[in-house]
């Protein structure tokens, strides 16, 4: 048994070992995310990355969109969803420009998010300042927490 396990069919056992490394790598990434305070498996992987917070009255949605103009942004809200789409344009430079680095990206984006409770779509506000979009989504009266007094 020992002999077969360690010295039998070489390529098969090799593949097993590669799989094990892959699993280990995944587990390490998962642990890394967990320690860094990122909820594992919650990133949507869609541009733009957003931060969603709430207080008693509102939800707040923030996204980093440097260089995106407000006329190129389209925000729509329904009872429990927000959709964010638009285009990031990088104007072309003169013909004589020779590039050393080109890391900034242009293109279209669209993203949809679901909220856990209902909002009032008529009172949604959005502001774009210093390349950060902030959308304020007021919670509907039903969804707001109620203080319960003890008699």
């Amino acid at each position, binding site marked *: 048994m020992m002999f077969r396990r360690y010295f039998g069919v070489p390529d098969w056992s090799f593949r097993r070992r590669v799989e094990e490394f892959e699993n280990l790598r995944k587990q390490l990434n998962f642990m890394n995310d967990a320690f860094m*305070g990122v909820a594992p498996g919650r990133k949507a992987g869609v541009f*733009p*990355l957003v931060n969603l917070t709430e207080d008693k009255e509102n939800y707040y949605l923030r996204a980093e969109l*440097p260089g995106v*103009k407000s006329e190129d942004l389209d925000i729509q809200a329904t009872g429990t969803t927000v959709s964010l789409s638009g285009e*990031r344009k990088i104007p072309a*430079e003169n013909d004589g420009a020779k590039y050393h680095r080109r890391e900034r990206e242009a293109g279209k*984006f669209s993203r949809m998010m679901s909220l856990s409770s209902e909002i009032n779509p008529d009172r949604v506000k959005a502001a774009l300042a*210093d390349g950060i979009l902030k959308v304020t989504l007021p919670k509907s009266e039903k969804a707001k927490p109620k203080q319960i007094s003890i008699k």
Partner: protein
Amino acid sequence: MTDSKDIQVKEKTEVANPAEQTKPGPVFSPDVDIFENDQEIVLLADMPGVKADNLNIDLRENTLSIVGDISPSENADEEDILIEYEIGRFVRQFTLSEIIDQGSINAKLDNGVLRLTLPKVKKAAPRKITVSAA
């Protein structure tokens, strides 16, 4: 630049070993475009959340450093539901190979994008030297 392309999600690159940081918190390296033409070097950097007052640009010898400080935009009573990106300072350094006319550097910050124009010092016109045989 193609217009129809969709932007792929890209996480901010955290600087692994920022030198001499005196403030706590993560430090990120901004995405930049750098190009040059005959007269100038132009640098464009994405620095969302940085205000003009909190941006420091420094050119010493031939090292250009850009530091952008961020003030948190969240109120204290907000609770996090989903955090996909982190907020931190932006720091990046470049070594310039050309001699820059320091007096006419121009920096503009527009909607989170820095545009830094570094004009080159005009070189003396090339002169052909003829060698006369003795």
